């Protein structure tokens, strides 16, 4: 279940051709791949999508609670004594809610809401099965009973926060138009509760999100943004907007995206960290798609603000900003260039050295995609000092980060100029990836072997193949590659064997070389101070 797909090799794997042909085929694929970074990126994107999807599924079950809301405190809602509410058993509640007396309805509704707000085992199913939802939805429309409206909205919000089935019950009882209408309530706390409920419905998935969009939820929401909207309200609103941008298959309609974007941009310039966080997440969802989707985001001119937010002190802001930029640099060369121009390369080194491993990994992932660009961008990457942190990650990063770093090296070596590849080797990357040949992950080994092959092709252009062979041997690479010929995986075995046959089999050549070993290597490791030119 490894999410990476590696085109060249997975095809070779299927091949039954004799080794020699396989070699050539692989090399030709290799070149193609080098020439087509766009394609490469596409694959990388799909990989990350899967990764992220898995992650989302996990976090989906988690709930979070925002304590700082503009909604009134429990204590403020003192129209009914709390003691009286707390003790009501479910059958009382049902009776009250179904009664015709407003006071009973309010009391029952509040008691139900309390049950649904308790931390453990809120009786969602029981309340649904008791047939209370249609009553609650009807309460939403009672503009002359704001207390009842509020309690019903809260109860429905919490039921909609459950599983898809729970959300479905709420929607099927006609809550969507009722909540959208409620957005316009003059009572701020009621309107905000409606925002929250709509957020839960939108967060269920693409289908309900699009139903909300069709019901024109977006203009109704955006109408509530004005200079004196309280911060707490805006936080809920931003979160709901982000859910309207979320999910794929399908993406939200482009027209909806265009509607939301200007307000999102506006929110991104506020100072509150929760607002910034959710707005950034929204952007990250919108940029997590094909190049057309990315284009919509880039064209708003928000890239430089996102790069700025990558340095935000709050992890909850920095992470989605980094994710958004990561998505953008997985786009076309032009889109990547927008991020580079905004200074992303100046921020990445510090993020690659961040104390949190997940940040290092995301930053390295972004770097690997920039390294897949044209040599002009690779040059900028070198100039901005990205090679030292890259090599550090190869050496000491946690495994997921090392995996991204290895990709960066392979992308770099397939798109970079000969001089750039030499520079990479001199920075210690070759030594580091050779050390990583010991890992158990087959895909990573294949990617490394690919990188080594790329480096040899660069050496070939310089006529320095033998020197490189010696260097690889000196760094212990030959032993490792020889070991890989015993690898269980057929493709690894083939790749290792090809390298050995091509660059390490000719004894004479090695003999001749010996004189020159001492002084002059173009390919030298970082800690060896021998100077040589190409």
């Amino acid at each position: 279940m490894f999410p990476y797909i590696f085109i060249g090799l997975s095809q070779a794997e299927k091949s039954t051709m004799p080794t020699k042909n396989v070699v050539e085929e692989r090399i030709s694929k290799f070149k193609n791949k080098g020439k087509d970074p766009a394609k490469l990126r596409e694959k990388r994107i799909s990989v990350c999508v899967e990764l992220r999807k898995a992650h989302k599924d996990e976090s989906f079950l988690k709930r979070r609670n925002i304590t700082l809301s503009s909604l009134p405190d429990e204590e403020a809602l003192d129209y009914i004594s709390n003691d009286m509410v707390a003790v009501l058993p479910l059958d009382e509640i049902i009776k009250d809610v179904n009664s015709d007396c407003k006071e009973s309805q309010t009391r029952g509704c509040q008691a139900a809401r309390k049950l649904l707000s308790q931390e453990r085992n809120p009786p969602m199913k029981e309340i649904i099965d008791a047939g209370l939802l249609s009553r609650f939805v009807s309460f939403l429309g009672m503009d002359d009973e704001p207390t009842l409206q509020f309690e019903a909205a809260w109860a429905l919000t919490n039921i909609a926060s459950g599983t898809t089935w729970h959300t479905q019950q709420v929607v099927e009882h006609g809550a969507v138009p009722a909540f959208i209408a409620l957005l316009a309530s003059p009572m701020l706390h009621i309107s905000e509760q409606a925002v929250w409920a709509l957020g839960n419905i939108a967060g269920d998935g693409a289908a309900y999100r699009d139903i909300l969009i069709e019901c024109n939820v977006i203009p109704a929401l955006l109408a509530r943004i004005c200079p004196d909207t309280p911060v707490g309200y805006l936080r809920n609103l931003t979160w709901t907007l982000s859910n309207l941008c979320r999910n794929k298959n399908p993406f939200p309609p482009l027209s909806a995206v265009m509607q939301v974007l200007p307000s999102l941009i506006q929110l991104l310039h506020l100072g509150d960290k929760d607002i910034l966080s959710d707005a950034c997440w929204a952007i990250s969802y919108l940029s997590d798609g094909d190049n057309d989707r990315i284009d919509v985001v880039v064209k708003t001119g928000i890239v430089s603000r996102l790069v700025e937010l990558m340095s935000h002190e709050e992890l909850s802001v920095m992470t989605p900003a980094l994710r958004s930029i990561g998505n953008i640099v997985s786009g076309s060369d032009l889109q990547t260039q927008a991020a580079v121009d905004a200074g992303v390369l100046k921020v990445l080194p510090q993020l690659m050295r961040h104390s949190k491993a997940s940040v290092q990994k995301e930053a390295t992932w972004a770097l690997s995609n920039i390294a897949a660009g044209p040599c002009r961008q690779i040059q900028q990457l070198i100039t901005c000092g990205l090679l030292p942190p890259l090599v550090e990650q190869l050496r000491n990063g946690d495994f997921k980060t090392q995996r991204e770093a290895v990709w960066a090296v392979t992308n770099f070596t397939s798109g970079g100029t000969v001089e750039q590849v030499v520079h990479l080797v001199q920075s210690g990357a070759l030594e580091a990836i050779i050390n990583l040949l010991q890992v158990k992950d087959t895909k990573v080994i294949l990617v490394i072997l690919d990188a080594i092959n790329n480096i040899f092709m660069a050496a070939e252009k310089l006529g320095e193949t033998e020197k490189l062979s010696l260097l690889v041997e000196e760094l212990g690479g030959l032993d490792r590659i020889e070991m890989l010929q015993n690898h269980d995986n057929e493709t690894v075995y083939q790749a290792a064997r090809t390298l050995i046959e091509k660059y390490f089999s000719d004894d004479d050549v090695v003999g001749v070389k010996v004189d020159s070993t001492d002084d002059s290597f173009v390919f030298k490791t970082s800690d060896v101070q021998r100077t040589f030119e190409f």
Partner: protein
Amino acid sequence: LFYMLYLTNVKHVLCFQRVALLVASDIDALCACKILQALFHCDQVQYTLVPVTGWQDLGTAFLEHKEQFRYFVLINCGANVDLLEMLQPDDDSVFFICDTHRPVDVVNVYNETQIKLLIKQDDDLGVPPYDDIFRDEDDEEGGDSGNESDEGSEPSGKRRRFDEGAVERRIERQRAKREWEARRREILFDYEQYEYHGTSASMMFFELAWVLTKDTKDMLWWAVIGLTDQWVHDKITHMKYVTDIATMQRHVSRHNHRNEDEENSLSIDCMRISFEYDLRLTLYQHWSLYESICNSCYTSCNFKLWTLNGQKKLQEFLADMGLPLKQVRQKFNSMDMSIKENLRDVIEESSNKYGLKDIRIQTFGVHFGFKNRFLASDMVHATAALLESTEKDESDSDNFIKALDSLSRSNLERLHSGIELAKRKLMAIQQTVASCICTNLILSQGPFLYCYLMEGTPDVKLFSKPIALTLLCKYLLKAFVHSTRNKRCKLLPLIMAAPKDVEKGTVIVVGIPPESETSDKKNFFGRAFEKAAESTSSRTLHDNFDTSIIELKTDDRSKFLDALITLLS
């Protein structure tokens, strides 16, 4: 009372399966291994024996055998780490662990499905109660969701609105959880702070054999040797030794009683174990009395034989006993029978005058046939010398097999070669001790004493081995305590370092607790070494099953020591 149930279970399970037997490199483990092999032989259980010298070895051995084996028996290794975490075994691998290393890792204690510990129940493990160190994840469900500790992760798609009271309760619960965690850290710190040893593995297996009524005299003798190993190598307190000796004595009388008839007809291949109140003179029956006195830790330290005065005192002592020098210096075997007869009493009497009050100790001896007589400690020294032989470039496993062989009575030749090696080792230890004391190589570093054997020191190769270096360490510390006048220094623990692998540029480092009559033999260096290595990023290898023995890059020695001093001050 011990875990009878477990033990019979072990037997039950192991009877029908092939078993991988992973055995650490110490004498007690070898003896336990012999007993288990004999039991397996009885029941025709197939097994594969794999000697392991350290954690890396253990990991490799497991990887190599995990496909073919479901059951692993670990002797004197595996208890003091989270084994499942380290080996990542499949769910159906089962480990039977009989290991003297303490403290036992708490996960091993509480995992009953894959880890079966063979531990004597009256060994006080002091394991913290389950509820103090583990919490069911369910308990945290409420507290976990919604807390933003995993800050930076993607927000949830749906959120429930809690009432304010719930929020407060959640905060309260998180506070309680943090407190609980802090307490847990404290409890675990206390629990894991000191390293020490429990009941010998060979005694455990002997008692297993006894419960199964399969015990033999050979097994009994091995159990005695295993226990004696713990005494010789200073792993248990004197109290524990005396108690366990008493247990063994009961078994010995039972066996002797059982075979009373045979005893009267000593035959060439008979074996007789006897309780002895014998001299603490190492290998004296296989050496000359004089050499044994010179090379035994007890006498050497008490006379301070590294001083001229000490040598003079020794001569007076010998004169006091009224033994002719010629007799004393010749092989014990060739001494006059008349002298040998009441030798122990004679020596004890004179010793008392010279302040050597406890030159005799409870132990056991064995007769093989008519002429071969060995004390349990003879066996320990001989087998240890074979196990860590540096003679030729023999592999660890060759040495292991030889050492194992020397425990069989069918292989007395091997045993005798071990005794010769042991004599050389003891002389080397004595000379090294003398030269370290005389040239003041023991430095007080504040919280501990430190002694570094330089490359080029005679016999330094011998001390690249853990058991030998530990023994040297103990002898040296005893000698130092006898020779120094500095009262504070007498109470300090000792760290010794000796070259381990010159090519790799590493030293072996051993730390031992302070020397005292009432020492509880608890060693805190394991934890301290780990911390010091961590804080200085010293290149260390914590591969030994004893955490107080590590390998360290020679270049990192000074920063490592500095950190230790700071840590322990």
